[in-house]
């Protein structure tokens, strides 16, 4: 994919060129929105909204990482969504059981002692990470999603999160510290191979 050429064509109003960029980056934007909003439907809405506003604001893109530029639009869309949700909360924050009653803790957190040998599968690992991310303030969650999950470097992540570099460093450090504490509860359940990888320093 010749990204610069596609971006140039898209900037001239070529929707086909833009849609090829959409296909290339939709997973990254959707995953970012999903981690920040913790809701599949809202994440899909934010992703769509982000691509729409990206197309409209395409002429304001002035080089640099296009992925970081797109992630900035999806971060904005997520913040808009969170503001809307704050104004009129529609769903309980705790998951509901089948009979509609709120549960104290989701079933996937229910019994960590069941089997120490049992390995967390991908879904459980994802749930554990999301659970710990949700415990963070949004600003901290955003920087850690951009830097550690999406792999942006400091400069790109700071641009995408619209914060100065110093703020980014500080928030990232704090977020990692708190996530480490939260993930501690799941640590024993992580696959042995993964633990070794983590200890070796990924």
């Amino acid at each position, binding site marked *: 994919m010749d990204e610069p050429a596609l971006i140039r064509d898209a900037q001239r*109003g070529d*929707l*086909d060129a*833009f*849609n090829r960029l*959409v*296909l290339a980056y*939709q*997973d990254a*934007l*959707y*995953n970012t929105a*999903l*981690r920040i909003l913790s809701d*599949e439907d809202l994440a*899909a809405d934010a*992703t*769509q909204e982000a*691509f*729409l506003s990206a*197309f*409209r604001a395409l002429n304001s893109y002035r080089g640099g990482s296009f992925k970081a530029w797109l992630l900035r639009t999806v971060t904005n869309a997520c913040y808009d969504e969170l503001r809307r949700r704050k104004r009129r909360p529609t769903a309980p924050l705790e998951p509901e059981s089948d009979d509609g009653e709120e549960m104290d803790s989701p079933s996937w957190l229910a019994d960590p002692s069941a089997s120490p040998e049992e390995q967390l599968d*991908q*879904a459980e*690992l*994802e749930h554990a*990470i999301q659970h710990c991310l949700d415990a963070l303030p949004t600003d901290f969650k955003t920087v*850690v999603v951009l*830097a*550690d*999950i999406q*792999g942006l*470097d*400091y400069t790109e992540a700071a641009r995408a999160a619209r914060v100065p570099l110093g703020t980014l*460093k*500080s928030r*990232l*450090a*704090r977020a*990692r*510290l708190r*996530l*480490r504490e939260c*993930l501690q509860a799941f*640590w024993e359940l*992580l696959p042995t191979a*993964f633990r070794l*990888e*983590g*200890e070796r*320093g*990924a």
Partner: protein
Amino acid sequence: MKTTFRDIERLSAYLDGQLPQAEKTRLESRLAADPALAAALEELRQARAILRRTPQRRAPRNFTLTPKMAGIRPPVPRAAPVLSWASAVAMLLFVCTLGANLLGQFSFGAAAHMEAAAPAHGIGGGPVEEAQVVTEAPLDSANAVTPTPKSLLLTAPEPTAEPDARAAEPPQEKARQSVSPWLVVWPSLAALLLGAALLTRWVSLQAFKKKAEKK
């Protein structure tokens, strides 16, 4: 030595290779001497390792934009600058024609009725101004057809002034019997313009759709 939050910030940046060389050297010598600091670095490294392993979901659907979503409209046909006014002109002609047509049909009966009604109305003590308008009615067929309040009587004739003038010029009997050629020409012109405008629009829309499907 106690690990401060400033240390955690340094360790986090160190982990990402974002620490200036001088600070990096200083931190490394502290790490060698301080097991608590080394443990903190290890914890941050583990947190980052887990986050990097976050399972990536596939997008639940494609988020490509349609021309409609992107607000791209079909191109305006080349003849459009002229034809975009065609429907407005057609409407104006239609209204004028309709007015003139109605006048042609009803002016005779209405005029006779008004002539008869005028004296009675005047004797009845109606407003003087209205009575004056009514007595003038037989001369001006436009006024005669509508027994409306004065304000309307004064404004209504304006758009139809031309046909009225034509109708009023020849003797009244002749004007009522012969159909003015404008009554035929105007509606035809209006229909023609409207048809042309719609056809051009439709053809251009079809071409746009065809092009969009091809893509």
